[in-house]
């Protein structure tokens, strides 16, 4: 082997013999090099991509998809800070409006204890339960005054898609070290590589931690190394295996477990997912939900969990009503004993309290103001009960 020949050469020419101390010296030197490089190399901060919806009080702190740093929480200042975790159900998209529901609530809250409210939104499309655990881990490291977690009724206890965004595993690893009750979820979804990269990133933040940005640069610089010209031709049709490779696992499993006709509308498909949720009764989801309660309890943060309402026209259907009733009962069982004076959760969800709104499908609302009003009321009540003085008179 080339390595053996190299070591033989070192021995013959320089008298280098491999001993255990030589291995220790080389390892120490490698670690030192990594640490020094991490200090010397200029950091490459990630760029948030929410200019369209960010306001002075609310911004999405998620970094671009694939960046293992995950989120970029706002530095703690004089504000009353809220960390709001949720997926696409927390965004209202209507014909003329597009807003984070968290932003609408933040406007209504105005100030707390005389301090203006500042909300970091940990928003990801298609966020799933374990992704929310990872986001919560990042959020708690920024020491927010209040944590709000949206539980999507379609996915919260669904075993079809426990996790969507594996690149957040580093953030999950960081928050899973202690106590041991967190190891079950961590061992299920994390890999040693996730942990290894996380450790290296901690040792050398700007070199290893910022590798996503370095990778983008390297990819951009070297992408054009070719003798051939790019032409605008028609790409060959995708093979069946190619189409399979392009499918998200969740779509594949959903189509297998809840087959539907091509003409089936999205709301009906989502109702099928709800149905699957009831059938699965996934124990790992239950453990992940309880872990989120444990995390906020351990961090000493005030927290408000809520279940987003579904489209009232769908809810009017007997099947949907039954699924939601079962979900409520299951969530009540899963979260029994998890709430306290500072951690609020009503398994009944917001379903019966939000005035009817128009929805795009079963969970995506067009106008979030009705939901924001109820959420504001709940948050104000929680804040008052925990000794804060919220100014809930704002519009």
């Amino acid at each position, binding site marked *: *082997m*080339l*390595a*053996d020949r*190299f*070591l033989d050469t070192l021995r013959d020419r320089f008298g280098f013999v*491999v*001993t*255990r101390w*030589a*291995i220790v010296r*080389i390892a120490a030197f490698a670690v030192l090099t990594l640490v020094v490089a991490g200090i010397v190399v200029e950091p490459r901060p990630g760029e948030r991509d929410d200019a369209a919806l960010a306001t002075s009080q609310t911004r999405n702190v998620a970094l671009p998809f694939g960046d293992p740093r995950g989120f970029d929480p706002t530095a703690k200042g004089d504000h009353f800070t809220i960390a709001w975790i949720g997926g696409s159900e927390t965004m209202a998209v209507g014909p003329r409006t597009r807003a984070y529901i968290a932003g609408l609530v933040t406007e209504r809250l105005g100030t707390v204890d005389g301090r203006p409210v500042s909300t970091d939104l940990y928003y990801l499309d298609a966020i799933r339960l*374990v992704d929310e655990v990872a986001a919560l881990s990042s959020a708690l490291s920024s020491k927010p005054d209040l944590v709000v977690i949206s539980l999507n009724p379609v996915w919260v206890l669904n*075993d*079809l*898609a*426990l*996790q969507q965004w*594996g690149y957040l595993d580093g953030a999950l690893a960081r928050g899973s070290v202690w106590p041991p009750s967190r190891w079950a979820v961590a061992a*299920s*979804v994390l*890999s*040693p*590589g996730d*942990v*290894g*990269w996380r450790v290296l990133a901690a040792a050398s933040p700007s070199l290893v931690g910022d590798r996503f940005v370095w990778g983008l640069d*390297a990819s951009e610089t*070297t*992408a*054009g*190394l*070719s*003798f*051939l*010209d*790019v*032409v*605008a*031709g*028609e*790409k*060959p049709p995708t*093979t*069946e*295996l190619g189409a*399979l*490779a392009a*499918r998200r*696992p*969740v779509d*594949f*499993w959903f189509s*297998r477990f809840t087959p539907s006709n091509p003409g089936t509308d999205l709301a009906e498909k989502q109702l099928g997912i709800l149905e699957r949720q009831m059938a*699965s009764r*996934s*124990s*790992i*989801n239950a453990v992940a939900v309880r872990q989120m309660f444990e995390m906020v309890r351990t961090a000493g943060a005030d927290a408000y969990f809520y279940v987003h309402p579904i489209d009232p026209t769908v809810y009017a259907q007997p099947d949907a009503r039954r699924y939601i009733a079962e979900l409520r009962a299951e969530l009540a069982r899963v979260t029994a004993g998890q709430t306290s004076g500072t951690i609020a959760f009503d398994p009944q969800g917001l379903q019966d309290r939000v005035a009817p709104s128009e929805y795009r499908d079963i969970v995506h609302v067009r106008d979030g103001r009705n939901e924001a009003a109820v959420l504001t009321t709940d948050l104000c009540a929680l804040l008052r009960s925990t000794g804060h003085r919220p100014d809930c008179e704002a519009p």
Partner: protein
Amino acid sequence: MLDGDPFHYFSDLLVLMVVVVPVYFLLPWAPARQLVLCLTGAYLLFLIAPRLLAFYVVFWLVVYLLQLAATLWRDRPSSWVLTTLLVLLTLTPLVVWKLRPEWSVVEFNVGMNGFVDWLSPWTGAIDRVRDLILPIGLSFATFRAIDQIVKVRLEIVPALRPLHQLAYGFFPTVLVIGPVIEYTEVSDRLDETARWDPRDTLSGVLTIGIGAIKVFVLAYLLRGSQDVFALSTRSGSPADYWLELVMFAFYFYFNFSGFSDMAIGSARILGFRLAPNFNNPYLKTNPQAFWNSWHMSVTRFAQRNVFVPMGGMRARTQYVAIIATMMVIALWHDLTIPLVIFGLYHSAGLIGHRWWVTRHPVPEHRGLVRRAGANVLLFVYYLLSLPLLMLDLGALPEFYGRLW
């Protein structure tokens, strides 16, 4: 990506070794060390997808039974019928996958997920988070299994005991991208007292480093050359196509041999000296030397199990043996017509070279120019076969047309 990502596999393996290597060398009992190897490999498969682990548990248990069956009636003249049957049984999953990939890949994912879910709904939920996959590593595992069965049948090795079977089947460094190791490469080490040798560690780390440079620097820089086969979105002059094809050849080599180095280096850290898988193939000057230095583990497998049994060492049958050997090597990649052509093409090269040198013996010491000329000629001959590996039959005429 259906075929998995070797980068993640090796990331996991290398981090895992921080724990596994000390445990392995501290354990005084060989069975415990074998168990550590087996569990490490099994865990790496679990990380790719629990359904893949479940599949390989079944696969290697079946292989264990088949090798026991291979010991039956060994002394009877007709025992080769049973051996052939056992080999065909071992080949069945691979052949089904290659012949009906669309059907088998879907059924593999659905069926094995159902099995895992039945065993444990918790693990079933984890499995559904993982990507949809091919039966990753099955080509390598099948050849390893056949080699084992043949060796047991020929009494080269005794039938493997269960723990040996699992340690060999789940040998952690070769599960995804080979090489096709022989049982005899690891058997002695499995049973002997494990003593940590710092030189093994450093040599392994250096080999991994060399592999990493090949994959993450050299192959990475050349990765754009994969588009040479994208006929509808790339264009260029014939010279451009030749240059791009050369780039692709080096991309292919650095990527494949780099991951092989990482597998071999990782095994070396554990004290296992696996045979090399590449030996500067692009510097060779004749087809025989090329195939003895390119993906050597598959070549060695084919030589042992096809070339020699078919009379490759005898003048009268050597050409048939060469063709059979090259067809096995070619069809190991996939069961397609272009790969049949690939096998025949390289058979022709090997036969032509053998025929030529028997009539025009090559002097032992040739001049640099002559050697360089032979090297270039061989490399061009090899380049012309790459489209057969990468393209469908219908696209081949257009691609070759662009080279002229």
